[in-house]
């Protein structure tokens, strides 16, 4: 019986994979949209990191759907389309998913303010890492105003993104239970 059970378990489609794939696709679309926001003259050269907000939220609340390559794929899409540094954002997004593995429990026990503060630190680290690698490889420091504006805007947009994603997630959950 045990042998038959294993055989049929293998034949079943694991429902986790389509959702994991969907998360990667949504993240990639968000990073493309992020770049498209640059067409808006107010956000020229310093668009908010929407893909980071998404990745952070998913890694916090739905960690079982975050694969190893999720951060890598989302970051790489952004790098390929809008960056001079292929792999820069991919590297730091992998680090973010890794860091979330051991910060998750503590954050979930705290309130929203803790999550926001920690996200702000993460956003600053993501941009500073890119700045550091960029400066080291180009031996030049870019203009810092757009960098600071990008960090600030990402921090400011986090609560809005968080509420939108939480609402969508709750709605989907309700639809599934109907």
């Amino acid at each position, binding site marked *: 019986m045990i042998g038959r059970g294993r055989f049929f378990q293998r034949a079943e489609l694991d429902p986790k994979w389509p959702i994991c794939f969907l998360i990667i696709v949504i993240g990639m679309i968000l990073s493309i949209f992020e770049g498209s926001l640059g067409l808006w003259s107010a956000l020229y050269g310093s*668009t908010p990191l929407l893909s980071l907000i998404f990745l952070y939220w998913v890694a916090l609340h739905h960690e079982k759907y975050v694969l190893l390559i999720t951060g890598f794929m989302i970051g790489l899409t952004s790098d390929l389309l809008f960056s001079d540094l*292929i792999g820069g954002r991919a590297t730091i997004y992998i680090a973010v998913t890794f860091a979330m593995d051991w910060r998750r429990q503590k954050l979930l026990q705290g309130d929203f303010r803790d999550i926001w503060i920690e996200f702000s630190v993460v956003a600053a680290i993501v941009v500073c890492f890119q700045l550091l690698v960029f400066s080291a490889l180009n031996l030049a420091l870019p203009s810092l105003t757009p960098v600071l504006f990008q960090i600030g805007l990402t921090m400011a947009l986090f609560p809005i993104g968080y509420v939108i994603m939480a609402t969508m997630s709750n709605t989907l959950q309700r639809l599934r239970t109907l």
Partner: protein
Amino acid sequence: MRASDKAKIRQRRIGHTLLVVASFSLMFLGKADFSALRSARMGLNDFIAPVVDLLSAPVRGVETMVQGIRTVASLRAENVRLQAENAMLKRWRRRAEILESENRQLRSVAGAVSPDRRVALTARAVTAPGGAFAHTVLVANGSDQGIAAGNPVVTADGLVGLVVDVGAAYSRVLMISDINAQIPVILASSSWPGVTTGNNGPFLALRYLPEEAMPRVGELVLTSGHGGVLPAGVPVGRIDLVQDDYVRIKPAVDLRNLSYVSILVGGTDGIDTNNLELGEYYTPLPQDDDSRLFEGVNALGERQ
């Protein structure tokens, strides 16, 4: 903790490490400028660019709407400004016609041949710089339309940048504001040469000006044509600030509002990055005892 859980954690850590190593390798390979990686990147861009274009549509719509509202609000002031500009342009046109005729006569006397054989190809900007670390845009024309790396990109106002990567249907343009863009220029009124460099911000810096040069705020800066990649005489910007040795330039083109650009095809064969050898694309200047690197003619026609 069970042994299987420990093994899973170990596997995840190894996976993370491998991915970080892969990303770091990509960074260095990208910086090493391997042609295979460039081709792969442009191939992927050709594939993703239509999606980018589709996702940009709502943003572009909102931007157009905002601009429309602004225009309506300032319609009267705009009309007065345009009338004044029109009167000034008419005066300039008359002056340009006189100068063109004079120029033609002088060329025929000197036997000079116009070196510029470029054809302008209009292309739509699909993206805009999204981050602070690269000022590049994707434009919807590629090698299928005859575009090659090194082709200058301009608008009616002046220089935007030059094509650095070419795919079949899309090309990547390095803007003059990018940290890697260095444009050989001259000061329009005194012909002193220099080089503009971007810093991924809204302004450019003017460097390598000779000590004798006296840059003035408001002075026009044009491409010099040195190096043969860019045509001479294309406006790059105007001097915005002079502070000791630091000269800041405001680009002639509003790089934040790029919808359509002209790519100047032909004239040069573009830059073959696969076969770039030292000395093939530029000739070192003769080492004279004079400390000046370049020679120029000032607005009065005197050689300096």
